[in-house]
């Protein structure tokens, strides 16, 4: 026999052996067993880091699709009138349509501005004060909060279990005949991890597929200049445009809202809030944890001259010179901030109401 023939024989033998080995214990496999959901391959745009996804909640096609349906479904609120999307509107980078405070199902307004839902998979803690320790656990906060969806969680799960569609959808995504709270948390977290923005004009400029104007480039330099904007200490340049740390940015020296302190009870955490991402910042007015500023100019004015000194004021800001930016500097920085708007994100079909 020639080598070629030998090779072919050997290949056939290998195939037979493989099938035999594979089938050896087949009698143990239940043919009706749940085959499991289809993995979802998350596409990370160039310029953004790898996303850490918890091992107990891998993204799946079925899980992400289910999370998307739940995100838009008012079934999760007590009177079936509000969904996550009620206060997180895609057109506004998932903030509440320009509102300072959002109003819950009982007509009561909250005390903090709805956060943008962009690149959440890179964040470690959630809410303005980091009260939610992971994305899955964050999900149930707004559902139960009396000034938001005001639903009893057990009741929400009961409604899902007695719904015509959800039991089958949850079974496809997670297996099991009964919907559990963990499954609800996991599904919405999966969808939220897919909400990635990385195609703004700034990103295109970095990738070499777009140009920025002279003013925008000047603004980009000023943004990073420690004697001018000095923005990058907290709003890290590129990638997520936030360090996601908790900082006191001097909006107050006496705190109506103690922020991070409410969670940690550490005195030096008074008045600290999470650094928000500046991606799509032009779409997410008003600004700050309580939405006190309606324009980016007011924000720049605050960091230039308006911040208040206090023991927990961020160290970097506490040594920043007041009045270090000219009016032109601030205008240029705002021009740069506008390049962070990602219209493909706010128009992405994959995030719309299914």
């Amino acid at each position, binding site marked *: 026999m020639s080598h070629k023939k030998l090779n072919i024989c*050997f290949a056939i033998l290998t195939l037979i052996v493989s099938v035999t080995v594979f089938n050896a214990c087949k009698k143990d496999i239940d043919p009706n067993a749940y085959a499991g959901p289809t993995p979802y391959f998350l596409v990370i745009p160039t310029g953004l880091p790898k996303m850490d996804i918890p091992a107990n909640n891998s993204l799946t096609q079925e899980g992400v699709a289910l999370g998307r349906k739940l995100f838009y479904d008012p079934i999760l609120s007590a009177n079936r009138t509000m969904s996550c999307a009620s206060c997180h509107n895609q057109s506004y980078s998932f903030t509440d349509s320009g509102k300072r405070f959002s109003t819950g199902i009982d007509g009561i307004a909250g005390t903090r501005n709805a956060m943008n839902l962009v690149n959440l998979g890179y964040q470690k803690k959630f809410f303005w004060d980091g009260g939610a320790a992971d994305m899955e656990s964050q999900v*149930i906060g707004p559902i139960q909060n009396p000034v938001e969806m005001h639903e009893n969680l057990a009741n929400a799960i009961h409604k899902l279990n007695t719904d015509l569609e959800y039991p089958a959808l949850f079974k496809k995504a997670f297996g099991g005949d009964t919907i559990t709270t*963990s499954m609800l948390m996991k599904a919405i977290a999966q969808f939220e991890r897919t909400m990635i923005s990385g195609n703004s004009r700034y990103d295109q400029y970095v990738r070499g597929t777009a140009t920025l104007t002279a003013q925008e480039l000047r603004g980009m330099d000023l943004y990073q200049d420690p004697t001018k904007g000095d923005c990058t200490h907290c709003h890290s340049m590129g990638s997520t445009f936030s360090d996601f740390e908790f900082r006191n940015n001097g909006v107050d020296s006496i705190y109506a809202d103690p922020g991070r302190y409410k969670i940690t009870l550490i005195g030096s955490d008074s008045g600290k809030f999470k650094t928000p991402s500046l991606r799509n910042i032009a779409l997410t007015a008003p600004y700050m944890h309580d939405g006190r500023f309606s324009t980016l100019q007011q924000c720049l004015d605050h960091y230039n001259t308006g911040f208040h000194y206090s023991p927990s004021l961020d160290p970097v800001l506490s040594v920043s010179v007041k009045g270090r930016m000219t009016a032109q500097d601030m205008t240029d920085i705002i021009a740069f901030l506008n390049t962070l708007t990602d219209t493909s994100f706010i128009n992405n079909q994959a995030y719309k109401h299914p």
Partner: protein
Amino acid sequence: MSIFTNMISQFNSISIRIKSAGIIAMCVLLTTVSCRYKERTLTVTPEPPYPQYGSLTVRLSNEAGGVPVAPGSGSYTNAAGNVYTVDMLKYYVSNFTLIKSDNTEHNFANYKLINAEDTSTCSFTLDSVANGNYKAIRFYLGVDSAHNHSLVNEGDLNASNGMVWTWSTGYIFFKHEGIFHNDTGGTSILLYHYGVDDNLKTVDIPVSEFEVSADRKVMYLKFDLNKLYGNPNVINFNGNGIHQSLDSKDRVWLGQMKANFSSAFIFDKVQ
């Protein structure tokens, strides 16, 4: 097929081929053997000569001044003289440890949500309790920090059990809701929600020595609200009836409660 052919065509030496065939033969052999082994173990499980373990069922009786608490009916009087009701009484006990007379400890990483309204929740069984003499028990009132920072849990730690904070990730360790007669002659709401890591309470209880000898024992414990609100710190509900956060106004109350939980759990008997 073409994949296999391509793959195999890389094997140019006959000796490699022989080795490969040998490996495959081994695989077939192992697979066959492993399946047979599984069948055999099913039939010849040896019985140990005498079981090394028994079990201990812990039954909690919820009381106020020695009187069983009936959520939704009845009223009770605490050490401060406040007449109060119990509409809801729920709490977590976890991480039970049994301590032998020789001071060796046996830990059961368990989590149990006690709901006074539903007696079926007021007992739980620790399986595989090693034979021997026991003199004390230890457990947490609450949920340890390893499980208190994510809510993706099932069973008694299911987030739908009404025992999670909405403003912060974590479990409410203890919840008592009701009303009390206030000092102005009316009634006020009593809303006591206790929790967060710093307030996890380790409860140590000496018990009258008992032996486990491959049998099923039942330990009776009491949880007494009047002890919780009276010993050593007397907690007066007036102007102090609502605690459900971590604000500075809650600090004193949290400290008093944490201290009092030690006396609130009382050993009754083992049978």
